[in-house]
């Protein structure tokens, strides 16, 4: 499903954020990407989501080489991914339900079916009773769960999350983890970037360890 080979990423004015990184993630796998702040975790996330292009090397996601992807093809790739951003990127000018409806309106799902699916996604993350609430009125953990509902409402087979438990207390964090685990159980591939080592230990999952842009560990 994901194949990263010899990828280097150099930002315009910056130094190299990733240096010669290679790894593969199989369908249905759940993998963590970890490392200190500035190690390059978010850079991997952005490369896999085709938000950035690698400076060199190749990245294949769902059979497509992202290094050579046409600009016009990017939206269609993104629709197959579920993305959970470090800063969540919720829209605060509309309620919880409308936030989850956005990806469905992008793919042009008819309104009735879209509402049905959005409610199902909200139910999965325990926010169904709060569908009319504005996101600003949600707690940090609830906002993160809303971001997850929006990411999964299109039923992606690959879920990419960047620091999904940042700034959450351990109870909220473990709620999020349980949600991820339930996706893993139904065969969704998950790639989770986090510096939060404590809860990776609770999964017997694969951990890719980055340090200053280099992959220094890959234990399954």
């Amino acid at each position, binding site marked *: 499903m994901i194949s990263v080979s010899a990828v280097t990423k150099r930002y315009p004015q910056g130094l190299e954020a990733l240096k010669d990184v290679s790894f593969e993630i199989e369908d249905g796998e759940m993998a963590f990407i970890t490392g200190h702040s500035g190690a390059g975790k978010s850079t991997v996330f952005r490369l896999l*989501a085709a*938000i950035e292009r690698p400076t060199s090397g190749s990245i294949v996601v769902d059979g497509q080489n992202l290094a050579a992807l046409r600009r*016009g093809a990017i*939206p*269609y*790739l*993104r*629709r197959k991914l579920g*993305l959970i*951003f470090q800063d969540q*990127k919720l*829209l*605060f*000018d509309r309620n919880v339900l409308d936030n989850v409806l*956005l*990806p469905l*309106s*992008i*793919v*042009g*799902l*008819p*309104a009735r079916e879209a509402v049905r699916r959005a409610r199902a996604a909200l139910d999965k993350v325990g926010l169904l009773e709060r569908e009319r609430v504005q996101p600003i009125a949600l707690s940090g953990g609830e906002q993160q769960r809303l971001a997850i509902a*929006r*990411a999964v409402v*299109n039923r992606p087979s690959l879920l990419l999350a960047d620091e999904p438990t940042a700034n959450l207390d351990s109870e909220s964090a473990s709620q999020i983890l349980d949600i991820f685990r339930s996706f893993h159980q139904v065969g969704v591939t998950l790639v989770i970037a986090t510096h939060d080592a404590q809860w990776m230990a609770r999964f017997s999952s694969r951990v890719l360890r980055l340090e200053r842009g280099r992959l220094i560990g890959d234990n399954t």
Partner: protein
Amino acid sequence: MNGFFSQHYAAQKSAARRLSSSPLNTLLSLIVIGIVLALPAAGWVMLDNLQGFAGNLPGVQQISLFMMVDTGEKEAAEIGSRLREANPGKWWFVARDDALKHLTETEGMGDVVAGLTKNPLPDAFVVEPGDSRPEVLERLAETFRSWPAVAHVQLDSAWSRRLDLFLRIGRLAVSLLAVLLAGALVAVTFNTIRLQILAQAAEIEVSRLIGATDAFIHRPFQYFGVLHGALGGLFALLLVAGIGRILAAPIGELFALYGSGFIPSGPSPSQAGAIVGIGAALGWLGARISVAIHFRG
């Protein structure tokens, strides 16, 4: 296909929501667009009315042929047959006795005529040409002047010429005004859309990140421009119709003074459609340009 329609429907809804979410802004810019469109639209409707008035004015398109005073039936018959042959339109003969009788009946002229010992008026023909363009009238008059026993040809086209010229200048002025104000309308829409794009920056960014195409992102702004322009056009139409109602009665009286039965009217259904349609088209153009510039690269 289903997805296609629901996407367009969603874009229309989103455009309508953006319009109604800031009612004061919307109202103010609709007033600006309405007035901007109303100016040339009112000019256009007025010129249309003037044209109708001109076409209805009796006597304007008449050519009178006066015979020499000492000519008789033979010459008149000759002119009659030439007119039949030339077939310039409607024409009739006015015998000198009939002309005198008519003059007697004209207010204030009775006494003058009574004092005459003999009829000073000549026989005459009156021609109402089928084609009333000034240059055609001019050419006909020239032909009539060359005919035998014709003393004088009077072409009442000075009036018609002036009116025609006035209409031409008016049309040119309205067209120039329309072009200028169309530019203003495009600029107003451009700026409104620019502010919309800034205000929607978060939604645009998120939409892109989760798989929206350029078309999906641009579409609501284009619908917004169309809707905005069409509503401005509708407002302009109300203004023009209102002005028309106020002016209809006094202008009708004025027309009547010139012997025209022409009744001034407000914008016709096709003009109304055109005003709203042009508003929508210019709104779309402003939105297109704004979107093209602000989403460049």
